[in-house]
């Protein structure tokens, strides 16, 4: 664990993984879209709007997955004070916000024709909206505090406290009487969805996952670059000041 948490080791590992995930993303875009839009049947009740589900469900899963990853990284940052954990959590937050926004937008675009309303304040929709604000709050907190150690602690605590919302989202459809339907893929007794619709769903999920890993690694590498640039610029400036004093 400590071995991979070393920034130099991370650079090597990410350079090795990045091409695989980036190319998998590029290949999965046409394949996933072909199955989602062309090679899958319309639903007998939802008609063609079922195709919105191939974006909505993977986006919602990734919204929860990203927050879970952010909370784990925040715990590692609080307990072991490892800088890479902060880099990972901070790099993940905008991706999580993007997935949550996409889940909300596609949900509304499906809700209007199918439910007859863009939005209801039921437990599932409300708790996902709160997730979106948790992501925004986490991002804003990092930017609001100048001292990096204080910002790291405050942001990590916010991420961990906010994690209570993740099981609430997952089980909201069972605990409360929601307009949103309960789980139909990850449920006891296996998925209640025809394989013709599970194939595009899992292809789009794989696409979102590969996209997430690719952009997350890009963001982490960029953050490590920034830290090195700051160090080098400080060194160059110190050298210039020494020359000035000597002259």
């Amino acid at each position, binding site marked *: 664990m400590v071995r991979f948490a*070393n*920034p*130099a080791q*991370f*650079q090597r590992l990410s350079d090795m993984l990045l091409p695989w995930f980036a190319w998998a993303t590029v290949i999965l875009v046409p394949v996933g*879209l072909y199955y989602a*839009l*062309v090679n899958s049947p*319309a639903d007998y009740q939802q*008609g*063609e*709007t079922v*195709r*919105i589900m191939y*974006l*909505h469900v993977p*986006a919602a899963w990734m919204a929860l997955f990203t927050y879970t990853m952010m909370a784990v990284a925040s715990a590692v940052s609080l307990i072991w004070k490892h800088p890479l954990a902060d880099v990972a959590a901070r790099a993940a937050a*905008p*991706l999580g916000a*993007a997935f949550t*926004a*996409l889940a909300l*937008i*596609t949900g509304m*675009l*499906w809700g*209007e*024709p199918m439910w007859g309303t863009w939005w209801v304040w039921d437990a599932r929709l409300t708790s996902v909206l709160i997730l979106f604000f948790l992501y925004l709050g986490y991002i804003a907190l990092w930017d609001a505090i100048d001292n990096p150690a204080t910002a790291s602690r405050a942001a990590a605590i916010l991420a961990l406290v906010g994690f209570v919302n993740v099981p609430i989202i997952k089980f909201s459809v069972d605990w409360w009487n929601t307009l949103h339907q309960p789980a139909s893929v990850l449920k006891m007794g296996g998925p209640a969805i025809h394989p013709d619709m599970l194939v595009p769903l899992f292809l789009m999920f794989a696409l979102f996952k590969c*996209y997430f890993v*690719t*952009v997350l690694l*890009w*963001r982490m*590498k*960029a953050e*490590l*670059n*920034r*830290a*090195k*640039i*700051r*160090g*080098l*610029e400080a*060194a*160059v400036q110190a*050298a210039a000041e020494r020359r000035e004093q000597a002259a």
Partner: protein
Amino acid sequence: MAEFFHMGGYALYVWASYGAALLILGLGAFLNWRILKRSSARLEHLRAAAPHRRRRDGHGAE
């Protein structure tokens, strides 16, 4: 083909969803990729300007 774009009368909702996904995820990928390329170029430039300070590991100059 026209039938495909028509989406059984739900064209607006289906294509708006896929458009939103393309916009959000596409823009996210493009902007983050550009930030990484620019920071890598800047780092190379700085290292070339101060070769004697070049460090082999990732955390020397912080």
